[in-house]
């Protein structure tokens, strides 16, 4: 009933989707899987009308159509159940269900809440929810709200003539096992009413629920398998795709580090409620540890906790073999030679309206001022030396960072932490959004830092990065370290990593 033919989408020079062929039949549950950045969310957004395809055609029941907006897609039978829930907490369940459609319940210019409650009960019955529709939405559990979200989409049934296609975007990511079971039961029951597109990074769930599975990689459909014939290992292989090539990763450039020396950082059974649990590892001087996992698996929370941004609920973190040293704020982290390059470079990494020298000394103003006055000449000298060392492309050291390319901005941030004398540096997606040349530069800098005896924790952008850079790789899944790889002893493949994460 819904069919995509040769659909492509580009963002500037980046091809997000190319020639996607995709269809959903009536009463079918279609799974959609792929690595981070494979194009899943772009495809979803085109399906529910948030993005428009650059080329290709969309058919509904064999009739060519297009979706100009989410509202337009909805009127043609496409419903979206959002991962970040779209319900408004301080409205009642029924007000949420009929948000924007209150006029259907108008009587003498006022809303007839009795009638609305009645209609709501009928909608809630579809998803098997027996709750009072006048209750405030925020009082419900997460899984109940998820079902209300589904019920809200199902109100489309009565409004449109055709059939429904409902998109479920990572609907199980925060549900318990029982709740997942319940959701699947409901979805299976609703198959008579609608077709579903199910997106999840939990492969076993996709396999058990879907009739057919599309595998996306680098913006293309690389595989299509029947649900009952699907095997996790085959799907994982096509998600990863390429041949493993040691030279490509440049693993030979990785230097050994001294494991016998006391670790720079020792984490034991660290837990932060709702973020991660029972994480343990050691980090030695010169070691590169890569944390691999899906979005939201808890990797970012781990590095942020080490940087003093979250407080530990259980476990212990020992820095520099000094058990008395507690890092409870970023200020304490920086004063103790710990550096952190956040993932959102433009918001947390760089000061766009400050120049290169100002950016570099922002974490070491104490060393670049005396009696509260800045030593500007020294700042410029520092900036000039790093511009030279890292070949940062800029007219001068006093150029505002907003004028630099992403790769050069990233070099500025790295130079900042190195010149601050950091002994531990944590890099969250250091190559995100950079072109290939700039990525290579960042890899080189990471190797240099490792050679200089800095301990590094890297949250890589791709598996290749993890394998090419890491002495060790820890796979984090749902807040737990599910697998550790020692890359100096074994050849790790992307396939191994995907198998552990999904």
């Amino acid at each position, binding site marked *: 009933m819904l069919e995509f033919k040769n659909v492509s989408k580009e963002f500037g020079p980046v091809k997000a989707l190319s020639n996607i062929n995709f269809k959903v039949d009536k009463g079918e549950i279609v799974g959609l899987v792929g690595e981070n950045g494979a194009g899943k969310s772009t495809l979803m957004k085109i399906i529910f009308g948030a993005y428009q395809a650059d080329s290709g055609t969309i058919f509904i029941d064999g009739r060519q159509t297009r979706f100009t907006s989410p509202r337009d897609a909805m009127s043609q039978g496409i419903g979206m159940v959002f991962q970040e829930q779209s319900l408004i907490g301080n409205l009642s369940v029924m007000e949420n269900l009929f948000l924007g459609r209150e006029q259907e319940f108008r009587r003498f210019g006022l809303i007839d809440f009795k009638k609305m409650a009645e209609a709501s009960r009928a909608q809630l019955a579809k998803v098997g929810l027996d709750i009072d529709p006048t209750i405030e939405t925020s009082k419900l559990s997460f899984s109940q709200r998820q079902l209300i979200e589904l019920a809200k989409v199902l109100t489309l049934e009565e409004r449109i003539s055709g059939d429904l296609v409902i998109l479920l975007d990572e609907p199980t990511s925060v549900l318990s096992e029982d709740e997942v079971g319940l959701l699947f039961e409901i979805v299976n029951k609703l198959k008579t009413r609608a077709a579903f597109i199910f997106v999840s990074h939990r492969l076993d769930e996709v396999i058990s629920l879907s009739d057919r599975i599309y595998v996306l990689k680098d913006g293309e459909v690389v595989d299509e398998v029947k649900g009952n014939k699907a095997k996790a290992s085959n799907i994982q292989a096509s998600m990863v795709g390429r041949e493993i090539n040691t030279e490509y990763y440049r693993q030979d450039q990785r230097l050994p580090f001294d494991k016998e020396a006391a670790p720079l950082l020792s984490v034991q059974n660290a837990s932060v409620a709702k973020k991660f649990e029972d994480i343990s590892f050691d980090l030695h001087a010169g070691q590169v540890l890569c944390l691999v996992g899906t979005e939201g698996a808890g990797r970012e929370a781990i590095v942020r906790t080490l940087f003093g941004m979250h407080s530990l609920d259980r476990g212990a973190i020992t820095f520099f073999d000094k058990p008395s040293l507690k890092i409870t704020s*970023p200020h304490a982290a920086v004063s103790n030679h710990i550096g952190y390059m956040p993932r959102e470079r433009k918001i*947390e990494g*760089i000061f766009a309206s400050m120049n290169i020298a100002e950016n570099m000394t922002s974490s070491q*103003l104490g060393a670049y*001022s005396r009696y509260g006055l800045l030593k500007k000449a020294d700042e410029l000298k520092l900036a000039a030396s790093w511009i030279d060392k890292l070949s940062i492309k800029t007219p001068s050291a006093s150029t505002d960072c907003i004028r630099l390319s992403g790769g050069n901005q990233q070099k500025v941030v790295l130079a900042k932490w190195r010149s601050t004398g950091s002994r531990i540096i944590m890099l969250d997606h250091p190559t995100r959004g950079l072109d290939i040349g700039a990525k290579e530069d960042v890899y080189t800098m990471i190797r240099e830092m490792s050679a200089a005896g800095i301990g590094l924790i890297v949250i890589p952008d791709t598996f290749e990065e993890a394998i090419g850079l890491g002495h060790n790789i820890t796979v984090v899944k749902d807040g737990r370290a599910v697998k550790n790889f020692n890359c100096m002893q074994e050849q790790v493949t992307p396939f191994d990593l995907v198998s552990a994460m999904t």
Partner: protein
Amino acid sequence: MRDILKSNYHWVTLFTLVILVGLVDMNFWNIESLLILMGDIVPLFIMALGLTFAIYIGGIDLSAQSMANMITVIASLYLATLGLWIVPVCFLVGVILGGISGLITTRFLVPSFISTLAIGGVCYSLAQWLSGNRALYMNSESRDALFGWMLSSTGIVPNTIFVGAFVFVIALLIERRSSLGRQLKAVGSAELAASASGLLVPRVKVLAFALSGGLAALAGVIFSIKLSGGAPSIANGFLLPAIVAVLVGGTPLTGGVGGVVNTLVGTMIVAVIRSSMLYLEVAATHQQMVFGIVLIIAIVFTIDRSKLSIVK
């Protein structure tokens, strides 16, 4: 070319206005009257300098006017007893009250426009209470002995201009040369990045509001010396033009760029607008309306919409 024009539009605005007003009335271009014009606006300028720091970090200080009001009362009451000490004492009062606004903002996460509005209410009440809600006159002997020089001129330059220049240089030093100034810039430019660089963001913010309070108090002292008295509402009508001066000068509400040089230009723009209203015979009752309109226009032109997702 467009970039140069865009980053210097406050200068462009100033010169365009000066030329336009001069074309309407050639008397406007008289150097002596221009200097008097600038001398008159010094208290407002000093208040605007303080506000610059609050706005530079992305906040606002709505207590500035009430602070100046209260200080005129305090200065009038205690000049005779405190003598020259009145200046540091008043400055300190401003720093403390401004610091309290900052603490309320950073500790309890109350937006600065609310915390400073509340502290402004406190200042206003204190002023009413201290003055018995009436206009006070300074001890003229003390005033003439200690501050008489401020009211005269050196050659054709009114001495208040030197006072304004002195405060300006200090403010410029803080902004451009001090570690604090750099931290203010960092917080205004990207607060999350400042925090991730290990800066003590709450402390920096408190200091910004303390500076704003202190300079508003200083504005109050100078204003009361000029008028030789004080009253709880004598400086009413300062706040709007002071905010206009900062924003027209080119320090946007989102902070991080601009600074005290911009505020200098902005204040001159305000001075020109104000005197042009005299030349164009705009009634005094209409002046605040004009500043209100100019404020909105200035915000519309300076705001960086990419930083805003929702406006409330």
